[in-house]
Protein backbone atom coordinates (compact mmCIF):
# COMPACT_ATOMS: atom_id res chain seq x y z
CA UNK A 1 0.00 0.00 0.00
CA UNK A 2 1.19 3.50 -0.83
CA UNK A 3 0.40 5.87 2.01
CA UNK A 4 0.02 9.59 1.33
CA UNK A 5 -0.15 12.32 3.94
CA UNK A 6 -2.73 14.89 2.85
CA UNK A 7 -1.39 18.38 3.44
CA UNK A 8 -3.82 21.14 4.28
CA UNK A 9 -3.78 24.54 5.87
CA UNK A 10 -6.50 26.91 7.02
CA UNK A 11 -9.30 24.59 5.95
CA UNK A 12 -8.02 23.90 2.45
CA UNK A 13 -6.18 20.98 0.93
CA UNK A 14 -2.91 22.13 -0.59
CA UNK A 15 -2.09 21.40 -4.26
CA UNK A 16 0.82 19.24 -3.21
CA UNK A 17 -1.64 16.71 -1.73
CA UNK A 18 -3.08 15.97 -5.17
CA UNK A 19 0.40 15.88 -6.72
CA UNK A 20 1.40 13.25 -4.14
CA UNK A 21 -1.78 11.31 -4.92
CA UNK A 22 -1.04 11.50 -8.65
CA UNK A 23 2.32 9.85 -8.04
CA UNK A 24 0.83 7.40 -5.54
CA UNK A 25 -1.71 6.25 -8.12
CA UNK A 26 1.07 5.56 -10.60
CA UNK A 27 3.18 3.64 -8.05
CA UNK A 28 0.22 1.62 -6.81
CA UNK A 29 -0.98 0.80 -10.33
CA UNK A 30 2.50 -0.40 -11.33
CA UNK A 31 2.76 -2.73 -8.33
CA UNK A 32 -0.91 -3.77 -8.25
CA UNK A 33 -1.21 -2.17 -4.84
CA UNK A 34 -3.59 0.27 -3.14
CA UNK A 35 -3.50 3.97 -2.29
CA UNK A 36 -4.37 5.15 1.20
CA UNK A 37 -4.43 8.80 2.12
CA UNK A 38 -4.42 10.00 5.69
CA UNK A 39 -5.97 13.23 6.87
CA UNK A 40 -4.85 14.53 10.26
CA UNK A 41 -7.09 17.43 11.20
CA UNK A 42 -9.16 19.00 13.93
CA UNK A 43 -11.92 19.84 11.43
CA UNK A 44 -12.66 17.52 8.51
CA UNK A 45 -15.30 19.71 6.86
CA UNK A 46 -14.61 20.04 3.16
CA UNK A 47 -11.36 18.08 3.30
CA UNK A 48 -12.53 14.46 2.98
CA UNK A 49 -14.63 14.38 -0.21
CA UNK A 50 -12.02 15.86 -2.57
CA UNK A 51 -9.61 13.07 -1.52
CA UNK A 52 -11.96 10.13 -2.14
CA UNK A 53 -11.62 9.75 -5.93
CA UNK A 54 -7.84 9.67 -5.50
CA UNK A 55 -7.48 6.84 -3.00
CA UNK A 56 -8.83 3.41 -2.13
CA UNK A 57 -9.29 4.54 1.44
CA UNK A 58 -9.28 7.90 3.16
CA UNK A 59 -8.08 7.48 6.72
CA UNK A 60 -9.42 10.27 8.87
CA UNK A 61 -8.02 11.11 12.30
CA UNK A 62 -10.06 14.03 13.58
CA UNK A 63 -8.62 15.32 16.83
CA UNK A 64 -8.15 18.80 18.35
CA UNK A 65 -4.50 17.90 18.84
CA UNK A 66 -3.98 18.45 15.09
CA UNK A 67 -5.43 21.97 15.20
CA UNK A 68 -2.17 23.85 14.83
CA UNK A 69 -0.48 21.32 12.50
CA UNK A 70 2.49 20.95 14.81
CA UNK A 71 5.21 18.69 13.46
CA UNK A 72 5.27 16.83 16.77
CA UNK A 73 1.60 15.87 16.47
CA UNK A 74 1.81 14.91 12.80
CA UNK A 75 4.94 12.87 13.48
CA UNK A 76 3.26 10.86 16.21
CA UNK A 77 0.03 10.36 14.29
CA UNK A 78 1.70 9.27 11.08
CA UNK A 79 4.17 7.13 13.05
CA UNK A 80 1.34 5.10 14.59
CA UNK A 81 -0.22 4.64 11.20
CA UNK A 82 3.01 3.44 9.56
CA UNK A 83 3.53 0.90 12.33
CA UNK A 84 -0.02 -0.41 12.25
CA UNK A 85 -0.71 -0.35 8.50
CA UNK A 86 2.76 -1.26 7.20
CA UNK A 87 2.69 0.67 3.91
CA UNK A 88 5.44 -0.10 1.40
CA UNK A 89 6.01 3.56 0.51
CA UNK A 90 5.06 6.78 2.33
CA UNK A 91 4.68 9.97 0.28
CA UNK A 92 4.95 13.35 2.00
CA UNK A 93 5.27 16.90 0.59
CA UNK A 94 8.76 18.40 0.47
CA UNK A 95 7.36 21.42 2.26
CA UNK A 96 7.72 23.40 5.47
CA UNK A 97 5.31 20.94 7.05
CA UNK A 98 6.82 17.74 5.66
CA UNK A 99 10.39 18.66 6.46
CA UNK A 100 9.59 19.67 10.01
CA UNK A 101 8.70 16.12 10.99
CA UNK A 102 9.68 13.58 8.30
CA UNK A 103 13.46 13.28 8.85
CA UNK A 104 12.87 13.00 12.56
CA UNK A 105 10.17 10.37 12.13
CA UNK A 106 12.43 8.35 9.83
CA UNK A 107 15.24 8.48 12.40
CA UNK A 108 12.87 7.45 15.18
CA UNK A 109 11.38 4.52 13.27
CA UNK A 110 14.80 3.70 11.77
CA UNK A 111 13.35 3.88 8.28
CA UNK A 112 15.14 5.23 5.21
CA UNK A 113 14.16 8.66 3.96
CA UNK A 114 14.73 10.26 0.56
CA UNK A 115 13.93 13.96 0.26
CA UNK A 116 13.30 16.46 -2.55
CA UNK A 117 12.39 13.59 -4.82
CA UNK A 118 11.61 14.47 -8.43
CA UNK A 119 11.05 10.93 -9.74
CA UNK A 120 10.69 7.51 -8.13
CA UNK A 121 9.75 3.97 -9.09
CA UNK A 122 10.14 0.36 -8.09
CA UNK A 123 12.35 -1.86 -10.23
CA UNK A 124 11.99 -5.57 -9.40
CA UNK A 125 10.68 -4.48 -6.05
CA UNK A 126 13.64 -2.22 -5.36
CA UNK A 127 12.80 1.42 -4.63
CA UNK A 128 14.75 3.97 -6.69
CA UNK A 129 14.48 7.74 -6.51
CA UNK A 130 15.91 10.55 -8.58
CA UNK A 131 16.65 14.03 -7.35
CA UNK A 132 18.77 16.94 -8.48
CA UNK A 133 21.88 17.83 -6.50
CA UNK A 134 24.73 20.38 -6.57
CA UNK A 135 22.65 23.40 -7.57
CA UNK A 136 20.71 21.17 -9.93
CA UNK A 137 23.80 20.65 -12.11
CA UNK A 138 23.57 16.86 -11.66
CA UNK A 139 20.91 14.27 -11.08
CA UNK A 140 21.41 11.55 -8.49
CA UNK A 141 19.81 8.14 -8.36
CA UNK A 142 19.25 7.16 -4.74
CA UNK A 143 18.82 3.61 -3.54
CA UNK A 144 17.99 2.20 -0.14
CA UNK A 145 20.64 0.63 2.11
CA UNK A 146 18.18 -0.47 4.73
CA UNK A 147 15.08 -2.63 4.78
CA UNK A 148 11.81 -1.01 5.53
CA UNK A 149 9.47 1.28 3.66
CA UNK A 150 10.98 4.61 2.60
CA UNK A 151 9.61 7.97 3.61
CA UNK A 152 9.70 10.02 0.43
CA UNK A 153 9.30 13.78 0.36
CA UNK A 154 8.22 14.90 -3.10
CA UNK A 155 9.16 18.28 -4.52
CA UNK A 156 6.03 20.36 -5.03
CA UNK A 157 4.82 21.03 -8.59
CA UNK A 158 6.66 17.91 -9.84
CA UNK A 159 3.67 15.67 -10.60
CA UNK A 160 0.87 17.97 -11.78
CA UNK A 161 -2.52 16.59 -10.82
CA UNK A 162 -4.94 15.94 -13.66
CA UNK A 163 -8.23 14.11 -13.42
CA UNK A 164 -8.55 11.83 -10.38
CA UNK A 165 -8.24 8.10 -11.12
CA UNK A 166 -11.66 7.39 -9.61
CA UNK A 167 -10.58 5.02 -6.89
CA UNK A 168 -13.71 6.04 -4.98
CA UNK A 169 -12.18 5.65 -1.58
CA UNK A 170 -14.05 4.52 1.49
CA UNK A 171 -13.73 6.72 4.55
CA UNK A 172 -12.18 5.00 7.55
CA UNK A 173 -12.02 6.59 10.98
CA UNK A 174 -8.70 6.01 12.68
CA UNK A 175 -7.66 6.74 16.25
CA UNK A 176 -4.06 7.94 16.42
CA UNK A 177 -3.11 8.72 20.00
CA UNK A 178 -0.84 11.74 20.38
CA UNK A 179 1.04 12.31 23.61
CA UNK A 180 0.73 16.05 24.24
CA UNK A 181 3.77 15.92 26.54
CA UNK A 182 5.74 15.18 23.37
CA UNK A 183 4.57 18.40 21.74
CA UNK A 184 7.35 20.90 22.24
CA UNK A 185 5.97 23.77 20.22
CA UNK A 186 2.82 25.85 20.30
CA UNK A 187 1.33 27.83 17.43
CA UNK A 188 0.92 31.55 18.11
CA UNK A 189 -0.23 33.15 14.87
CA UNK A 190 0.04 33.35 11.12
CA UNK A 191 1.83 36.34 9.61
CA UNK A 192 0.25 37.29 6.31
CA UNK A 193 2.49 37.96 3.32
CA UNK A 194 3.37 41.54 2.55
CA UNK A 195 1.15 42.88 -0.13
CA UNK A 196 2.61 45.56 -2.32
CA UNK A 197 1.09 47.48 -5.18
CA UNK A 198 2.04 44.83 -7.75
CA UNK A 199 0.97 41.20 -7.81
CA UNK A 200 3.62 39.40 -9.87
CA UNK A 201 1.32 36.35 -10.14
CA UNK A 202 -0.93 38.46 -12.39
CA UNK A 203 1.82 40.02 -14.53
CA UNK A 204 2.00 39.45 -18.31
CA UNK A 205 5.67 40.34 -18.59
CA UNK A 206 8.20 39.81 -15.80
CA UNK A 207 11.82 40.83 -15.64
CA UNK A 208 13.23 38.61 -12.93
CA UNK A 209 16.61 39.17 -11.39
CA UNK A 210 18.96 36.88 -9.47
CA UNK A 211 22.25 36.75 -7.65
CA UNK A 212 24.18 37.62 -10.82
CA UNK A 213 23.23 41.28 -10.37
CA UNK A 214 25.88 41.39 -7.60
CA UNK A 215 25.01 44.76 -6.04
CA UNK A 216 21.79 46.53 -5.12
CA UNK A 217 22.85 49.61 -7.11
CA UNK A 218 23.05 47.47 -10.24
CA UNK A 219 19.27 47.02 -10.15
CA UNK A 220 19.08 50.27 -12.15
CA UNK A 221 19.76 48.45 -15.41
CA UNK A 222 16.99 45.96 -14.63
CA UNK A 223 14.54 48.74 -13.85
CA UNK A 224 15.37 50.40 -17.17
CA UNK A 225 14.75 47.14 -19.03
CA UNK A 226 11.48 46.58 -17.17
CA UNK A 227 10.38 50.10 -18.12
CA UNK A 228 11.20 49.46 -21.79
CA UNK A 229 9.19 46.23 -21.71
CA UNK A 230 6.36 47.63 -19.59
CA UNK A 231 7.16 44.73 -17.26
CA UNK A 232 7.04 44.17 -13.53
CA UNK A 233 10.17 43.23 -11.61
CA UNK A 234 10.46 39.95 -9.73
CA UNK A 235 13.43 38.17 -8.21
CA UNK A 236 14.93 34.99 -6.84
CA UNK A 237 15.44 34.32 -3.18
CA UNK A 238 18.90 35.89 -2.66
CA UNK A 239 17.53 39.29 -3.75
CA UNK A 240 14.80 39.11 -1.16
CA UNK A 241 17.16 37.75 1.53
CA UNK A 242 19.41 40.74 0.90
CA UNK A 243 16.49 43.12 1.21
CA UNK A 244 16.99 44.44 -2.33
CA UNK A 245 13.45 43.53 -3.37
CA UNK A 246 10.29 43.26 -1.23
CA UNK A 247 9.29 39.71 -0.30
CA UNK A 248 6.10 39.79 -2.41
CA UNK A 249 8.35 39.91 -5.50
CA UNK A 250 9.88 36.49 -4.84
CA UNK A 251 9.36 33.73 -7.40
CA UNK A 252 9.72 30.09 -6.32
CA UNK A 253 8.91 27.57 -3.66
CA UNK A 254 8.82 30.01 -0.78
CA UNK A 255 7.49 32.85 -2.91
CA UNK A 256 4.93 33.07 -5.67
CA UNK A 257 4.10 30.94 -8.68
CA UNK A 258 3.98 33.07 -11.81
CA UNK A 259 2.67 32.37 -15.32
CA UNK A 260 3.50 35.41 -17.49
CA UNK A 261 3.61 35.50 -21.29
CA UNK A 262 7.29 36.42 -21.01
CA UNK A 263 9.68 35.63 -18.16
CA UNK A 264 13.05 37.26 -18.65
CA UNK A 265 15.53 35.78 -16.16
CA UNK A 266 18.60 37.91 -15.56
CA UNK A 267 21.50 36.47 -13.62
CA UNK A 268 19.35 33.64 -12.29
CA UNK A 269 21.01 30.21 -12.20
CA UNK A 270 17.70 28.37 -11.94
CA UNK A 271 17.71 26.14 -8.87
CA UNK A 272 14.72 23.80 -8.79
CA UNK A 273 13.12 25.82 -5.96
CA UNK A 274 13.07 28.78 -8.34
CA UNK A 275 12.06 26.87 -11.47
CA UNK A 276 8.97 25.42 -9.83
CA UNK A 277 7.65 28.94 -9.41
CA UNK A 278 8.01 29.99 -13.06
CA UNK A 279 7.96 26.96 -15.31
CA UNK A 280 4.37 27.72 -16.32
CA UNK A 281 5.57 30.85 -18.15
CA UNK A 282 4.81 30.90 -21.91
CA UNK A 283 8.20 32.13 -23.07
CA UNK A 284 11.33 32.04 -20.92
CA UNK A 285 14.43 34.04 -21.80
CA UNK A 286 17.65 33.67 -19.80
CA UNK A 287 20.66 35.97 -19.69
CA UNK A 288 23.51 34.44 -17.69
CA UNK A 289 27.26 34.19 -18.08
CA UNK A 290 27.33 30.52 -17.00
CA UNK A 291 26.44 28.28 -19.95
CA UNK A 292 25.82 25.39 -17.54
CA UNK A 293 23.23 27.28 -15.48
CA UNK A 294 20.10 25.08 -15.18
CA UNK A 295 17.93 28.04 -16.22
CA UNK A 296 19.03 27.34 -19.82
CA UNK A 297 17.44 23.87 -19.56
CA UNK A 298 14.03 25.45 -19.20
CA UNK A 299 14.57 28.62 -21.29
CA UNK A 300 13.29 29.03 -24.84
CA UNK A 301 15.90 31.66 -25.69
CA UNK A 302 19.20 32.43 -24.07
CA UNK A 303 22.21 34.70 -24.14
CA UNK A 304 25.39 33.45 -22.53
CA UNK A 305 27.23 36.64 -21.72
CA UNK A 306 27.84 39.30 -19.12
CA UNK A 307 24.45 40.67 -18.11
CA UNK A 308 26.01 44.10 -17.49
CA UNK A 309 26.75 44.32 -21.23
CA UNK A 310 23.66 42.59 -22.58
CA UNK A 311 20.91 44.16 -20.48
CA UNK A 312 21.64 47.83 -21.34
CA UNK A 313 22.05 46.87 -25.02
CA UNK A 314 18.72 45.07 -24.93
CA UNK A 315 17.04 48.06 -23.28
CA UNK A 316 18.38 50.37 -26.01
CA UNK A 317 17.30 48.05 -28.77
CA UNK A 318 13.82 47.52 -27.34
CA UNK A 319 13.32 51.24 -26.87
CA UNK A 320 14.10 51.73 -30.58
CA UNK A 321 11.91 48.79 -31.67
CA UNK A 322 8.96 50.10 -29.74
CA UNK A 323 9.34 53.67 -30.99
CA UNK A 324 9.60 52.50 -34.63
CA UNK A 325 6.61 50.15 -34.53
CA UNK A 326 3.61 51.31 -36.57
Amino acid at each position, binding site marked *: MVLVLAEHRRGELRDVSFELLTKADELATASDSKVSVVLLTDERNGLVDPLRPWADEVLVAEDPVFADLSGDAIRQGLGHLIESREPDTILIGHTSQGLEFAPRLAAQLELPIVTKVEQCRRENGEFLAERSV*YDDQFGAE*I*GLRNDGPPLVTIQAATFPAGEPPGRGGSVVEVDLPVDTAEMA*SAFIEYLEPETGTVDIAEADVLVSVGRGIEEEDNLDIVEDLAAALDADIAGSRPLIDNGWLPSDRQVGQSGKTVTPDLYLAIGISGASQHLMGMKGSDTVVAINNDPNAPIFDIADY*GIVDDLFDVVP*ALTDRLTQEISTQP
Partner: protein
Amino acid sequence: MDYNEYMHQVVCVKGVPASAAELELRDDGTLDDEWVTYELNEWDEYALEEAVSIREGVGGTVTALMVGDRAKEDLVFRSLAKGADRAVRVDGEGLDQADTFAKARVAAGAIDDMDDPPILVYTGLQAADTANAQFGGTVAATLDLPFTSFIVGVEYEDGADVLTVRRELEGGLEERRELEIPAVLGIQTGLNDPPYASIREIRAARDKPVVERSLDEFGLGPVAVTEMAMTGVNRYFEPEVEDAATVFEGDPDETANELAETLVELGVVR
Protein backbone atom coordinates in the same frame (compact mmCIF):
# COMPACT_ATOMS: atom_id res chain seq x y z
CA MET B 1 20.80 16.43 29.02
CA ASP B 2 21.14 18.92 31.80
CA TYR B 3 21.60 22.43 30.76
CA ASN B 4 23.93 24.89 32.27
CA GLU B 5 23.14 28.36 33.44
CA TYR B 6 25.30 29.97 30.83
CA MET B 7 24.27 30.04 27.23
CA HIS B 8 26.11 27.51 25.15
CA GLN B 9 25.11 27.38 21.50
CA VAL B 10 26.37 24.87 18.95
CA VAL B 11 26.24 25.55 15.23
CA CYS B 12 26.70 22.61 12.85
CA VAL B 13 28.58 23.78 9.77
CA LYS B 14 29.37 22.03 6.53
CA GLY B 15 31.61 22.72 3.57
CA VAL B 16 30.02 22.67 0.13
CA PRO B 17 31.55 23.14 -3.32
CA ALA B 18 31.92 26.84 -4.08
CA SER B 19 30.83 26.08 -7.61
CA ALA B 20 29.24 22.91 -8.91
CA ALA B 21 30.93 23.67 -12.25
CA GLU B 22 34.19 22.39 -10.74
CA LEU B 23 32.72 18.90 -10.32
CA GLU B 24 33.28 16.38 -13.08
CA LEU B 25 31.05 13.45 -13.80
CA ARG B 26 33.07 10.27 -14.38
CA ASP B 27 31.91 7.56 -16.80
CA ASP B 28 31.06 5.25 -13.91
CA GLY B 29 28.53 7.72 -12.49
CA THR B 30 30.69 9.00 -9.64
CA LEU B 31 31.72 12.63 -9.17
CA ASP B 32 35.32 13.79 -9.33
CA ASP B 33 35.81 16.56 -6.77
CA GLU B 34 39.58 16.89 -7.09
CA TRP B 35 39.43 20.49 -8.33
CA VAL B 36 36.67 21.67 -6.05
CA THR B 37 37.17 24.51 -3.62
CA TYR B 38 34.86 24.57 -0.64
CA GLU B 39 32.96 27.30 1.12
CA LEU B 40 30.67 27.33 4.14
CA ASN B 41 27.14 26.27 3.36
CA GLU B 42 25.08 29.45 3.02
CA TRP B 43 22.33 28.26 5.38
CA ASP B 44 24.98 27.49 8.03
CA GLU B 45 26.39 31.00 7.71
CA TYR B 46 22.99 32.43 8.63
CA ALA B 47 22.75 29.95 11.50
CA LEU B 48 26.18 30.95 12.77
CA GLU B 49 25.37 34.64 12.59
CA GLU B 50 22.11 34.08 14.50
CA ALA B 51 23.97 32.29 17.31
CA VAL B 52 26.59 35.04 17.41
CA SER B 53 23.96 37.78 17.62
CA ILE B 54 22.18 35.99 20.46
CA ARG B 55 25.50 35.61 22.27
CA GLU B 56 26.08 39.34 21.83
CA GLY B 57 22.79 39.90 23.64
CA VAL B 58 22.98 37.39 26.49
CA GLY B 59 26.58 36.17 26.59
CA GLY B 60 27.83 32.61 26.60
CA THR B 61 29.76 30.60 24.05
CA VAL B 62 29.24 29.63 20.42
CA THR B 63 30.81 26.37 19.23
CA ALA B 64 31.10 25.50 15.56
CA LEU B 65 30.78 21.75 14.99
CA MET B 66 32.06 20.12 11.82
CA VAL B 67 31.64 16.47 11.01
CA GLY B 68 33.99 14.99 8.44
CA ASP B 69 34.94 17.47 5.74
CA ARG B 70 38.56 16.51 6.18
CA ALA B 71 39.82 18.43 3.19
CA LYS B 72 38.07 21.60 4.21
CA GLU B 73 40.04 22.47 7.32
CA ASP B 74 40.19 26.19 6.59
CA LEU B 75 36.42 26.31 6.89
CA VAL B 76 36.83 25.68 10.62
CA PHE B 77 38.85 28.89 10.83
CA ARG B 78 36.36 30.67 8.62
CA SER B 79 33.61 29.75 11.11
CA LEU B 80 35.76 31.04 13.95
CA ALA B 81 36.48 34.24 12.03
CA LYS B 82 32.76 34.76 11.61
CA GLY B 83 32.30 34.78 15.37
CA ALA B 84 32.36 31.25 16.81
CA ASP B 85 34.41 31.07 20.02
CA ARG B 86 35.69 27.58 19.48
CA ALA B 87 35.33 24.69 17.11
CA VAL B 88 34.93 20.94 17.40
CA ARG B 89 35.87 18.82 14.43
CA VAL B 90 34.97 15.15 14.26
CA ASP B 91 36.85 13.12 11.74
CA GLY B 92 37.28 9.51 10.84
CA GLU B 93 37.53 7.10 7.99
CA GLY B 94 34.40 6.72 5.92
CA LEU B 95 32.74 9.84 7.30
CA ASP B 96 33.05 11.90 4.14
CA GLN B 97 31.20 9.18 2.22
CA ALA B 98 28.55 8.64 4.89
CA ASP B 99 24.92 9.57 4.27
CA THR B 100 23.17 12.44 6.04
CA PHE B 101 21.65 10.07 8.58
CA ALA B 102 25.03 8.69 9.65
CA LYS B 103 26.65 12.16 9.81
CA ALA B 104 23.78 13.49 11.88
CA ARG B 105 24.12 10.57 14.30
CA VAL B 106 27.83 11.33 14.67
CA ALA B 107 27.14 15.05 15.21
CA ALA B 108 24.55 14.21 17.86
CA GLY B 109 27.09 11.94 19.54
CA ALA B 110 29.63 14.77 19.65
CA ILE B 111 27.06 17.20 21.07
CA ASP B 112 25.91 14.71 23.68
CA ASP B 113 29.53 14.24 24.71
CA MET B 114 30.17 17.96 25.32
CA ASP B 115 30.94 18.97 28.92
CA ASP B 116 28.55 21.91 28.62
CA PRO B 117 25.34 20.76 26.91
CA PRO B 118 24.08 23.43 24.52
CA ILE B 119 20.79 25.24 24.95
CA LEU B 120 20.47 25.78 21.22
CA VAL B 121 21.80 23.59 18.42
CA TYR B 122 21.66 25.23 15.00
CA THR B 123 21.64 23.52 11.65
CA GLY B 124 21.13 24.98 8.21
CA LEU B 125 17.72 24.03 6.83
CA GLN B 126 19.60 22.33 4.02
CA ALA B 127 23.03 22.18 2.43
CA ALA B 128 23.61 23.71 -0.99
CA ASP B 129 25.16 20.52 -2.39
CA THR B 130 22.76 17.71 -1.46
CA ALA B 131 19.70 19.80 -0.44
CA ASN B 132 18.58 16.88 1.73
CA ALA B 133 17.16 18.95 4.61
CA GLN B 134 17.43 15.87 6.84
CA PHE B 135 20.34 16.69 9.13
CA GLY B 136 18.65 18.84 11.80
CA GLY B 137 15.67 16.57 12.35
CA THR B 138 17.93 13.56 12.66
CA VAL B 139 20.19 15.30 15.19
CA ALA B 140 17.07 16.26 17.17
CA ALA B 141 15.73 12.69 17.07
CA THR B 142 19.03 11.32 18.30
CA LEU B 143 19.33 13.86 21.13
CA ASP B 144 15.58 13.66 21.83
CA LEU B 145 15.29 17.45 21.71
CA PRO B 146 12.53 19.63 20.25
CA PHE B 147 13.03 20.65 16.63
CA THR B 148 11.57 22.97 14.10
CA SER B 149 12.83 24.25 10.77
CA PHE B 150 12.28 26.88 8.07
CA ILE B 151 13.18 29.42 10.75
CA VAL B 152 13.35 33.01 9.50
CA GLY B 153 13.27 34.72 12.90
CA VAL B 154 14.39 33.92 16.44
CA GLU B 155 13.29 35.82 19.54
CA TYR B 156 15.09 34.77 22.71
CA GLU B 157 14.88 36.37 26.12
CA ASP B 158 17.70 35.76 28.54
CA GLY B 159 16.82 32.96 30.96
CA ALA B 160 13.56 32.00 29.24
CA ASP B 161 12.73 28.32 28.84
CA VAL B 162 11.02 28.88 25.51
CA LEU B 163 12.03 30.47 22.26
CA THR B 164 9.73 32.20 19.80
CA VAL B 165 10.48 31.39 16.20
CA ARG B 166 9.11 32.70 12.95
CA ARG B 167 8.75 29.94 10.36
CA GLU B 168 8.43 30.38 6.65
CA LEU B 169 5.52 28.45 5.18
CA GLU B 170 4.71 28.57 1.48
CA GLY B 171 3.64 31.45 -0.75
CA GLY B 172 4.94 34.18 1.55
CA LEU B 173 2.89 33.06 4.58
CA GLU B 174 4.75 32.75 7.89
CA GLU B 175 3.85 31.50 11.33
CA ARG B 176 5.07 32.28 14.83
CA ARG B 177 5.59 29.37 17.17
CA GLU B 178 6.81 28.97 20.71
CA LEU B 179 9.38 26.22 21.12
CA GLU B 180 10.64 24.63 24.31
CA ILE B 181 14.39 24.76 24.76
CA PRO B 182 16.97 23.20 24.71
CA ALA B 183 16.14 22.65 21.06
CA VAL B 184 17.54 22.00 17.61
CA LEU B 185 16.80 24.66 14.99
CA GLY B 186 16.74 24.44 11.19
CA ILE B 187 17.64 27.87 9.84
CA GLN B 188 16.41 29.28 6.54
CA THR B 189 18.38 31.98 4.71
CA GLY B 190 17.52 35.64 5.03
CA LEU B 191 16.99 36.04 8.76
CA ASN B 192 20.10 38.16 9.34
CA ASP B 193 23.07 39.59 7.50
CA PRO B 194 26.07 37.24 7.76
CA PRO B 195 29.40 39.06 7.86
CA TYR B 196 32.23 38.68 5.38
CA ALA B 197 35.39 37.28 6.95
CA SER B 198 38.63 38.86 5.74
CA ILE B 199 41.85 36.91 5.24
CA ARG B 200 43.27 38.74 8.26
CA GLU B 201 40.33 37.69 10.44
CA ILE B 202 40.60 34.09 9.24
CA ARG B 203 44.31 34.09 10.09
CA ALA B 204 43.65 35.62 13.53
CA ALA B 205 41.01 32.93 14.16
CA ARG B 206 43.78 30.31 14.19
CA ASP B 207 44.43 31.32 17.79
CA LYS B 208 40.97 30.17 18.85
CA PRO B 209 40.61 26.66 20.31
CA VAL B 210 39.86 23.78 17.94
CA VAL B 211 39.09 20.42 19.50
CA GLU B 212 39.77 17.44 17.28
CA ARG B 213 37.69 14.35 17.94
CA SER B 214 37.82 11.07 16.14
CA LEU B 215 35.08 8.57 15.38
CA ASP B 216 36.90 5.95 17.45
CA GLU B 217 36.25 8.01 20.58
CA PHE B 218 32.55 7.35 20.11
CA GLY B 219 33.14 3.68 19.37
CA LEU B 220 32.36 4.27 15.71
CA GLY B 221 34.68 3.06 13.00
CA PRO B 222 34.33 3.15 9.22
CA VAL B 223 32.30 -0.06 9.21
CA ALA B 224 29.85 1.31 11.76
CA VAL B 225 29.40 4.51 9.77
CA THR B 226 28.78 2.53 6.58
CA GLU B 227 26.32 0.26 8.30
CA MET B 228 24.45 3.23 9.71
CA ALA B 229 23.67 4.50 6.20
CA MET B 230 19.99 4.25 5.29
CA THR B 231 20.31 5.38 1.69
CA GLY B 232 23.05 5.86 -0.86
CA VAL B 233 23.70 7.42 -4.24
CA ASN B 234 23.76 4.68 -6.88
CA ARG B 235 24.98 7.03 -9.58
CA TYR B 236 25.09 10.64 -10.65
CA PHE B 237 24.01 11.69 -14.13
CA GLU B 238 23.64 14.74 -16.35
CA PRO B 239 20.10 16.07 -16.13
CA GLU B 240 18.01 15.53 -19.23
CA VAL B 241 17.18 18.59 -21.23
CA GLU B 242 13.90 18.37 -23.09
CA ASP B 243 14.24 21.25 -25.51
CA ALA B 244 17.51 23.11 -25.49
CA ALA B 245 17.21 26.89 -25.53
CA THR B 246 17.94 28.80 -28.70
CA VAL B 247 21.14 30.56 -27.69
CA PHE B 248 21.99 33.75 -29.59
CA GLU B 249 25.66 34.08 -30.51
CA GLY B 250 27.73 37.18 -30.97
CA ASP B 251 28.77 40.29 -29.10
CA PRO B 252 26.30 41.92 -26.67
CA ASP B 253 24.92 44.28 -29.33
CA GLU B 254 24.30 41.44 -31.74
CA THR B 255 22.69 39.10 -29.22
CA ALA B 256 20.58 41.89 -27.70
CA ASN B 257 19.47 42.82 -31.20
CA GLU B 258 18.43 39.26 -32.07
CA LEU B 259 16.61 38.83 -28.79
CA ALA B 260 14.77 42.13 -29.21
CA GLU B 261 13.63 41.13 -32.71
CA THR B 262 12.50 37.74 -31.45
CA LEU B 263 10.48 39.34 -28.66
CA VAL B 264 8.81 41.64 -31.16
CA GLU B 265 8.02 38.70 -33.47
CA LEU B 266 6.55 36.77 -30.57
CA GLY B 267 4.29 39.71 -29.90
CA VAL B 268 5.34 40.03 -26.26
CA VAL B 269 6.68 43.51 -26.90
CA ARG B 270 3.88 45.88 -27.64
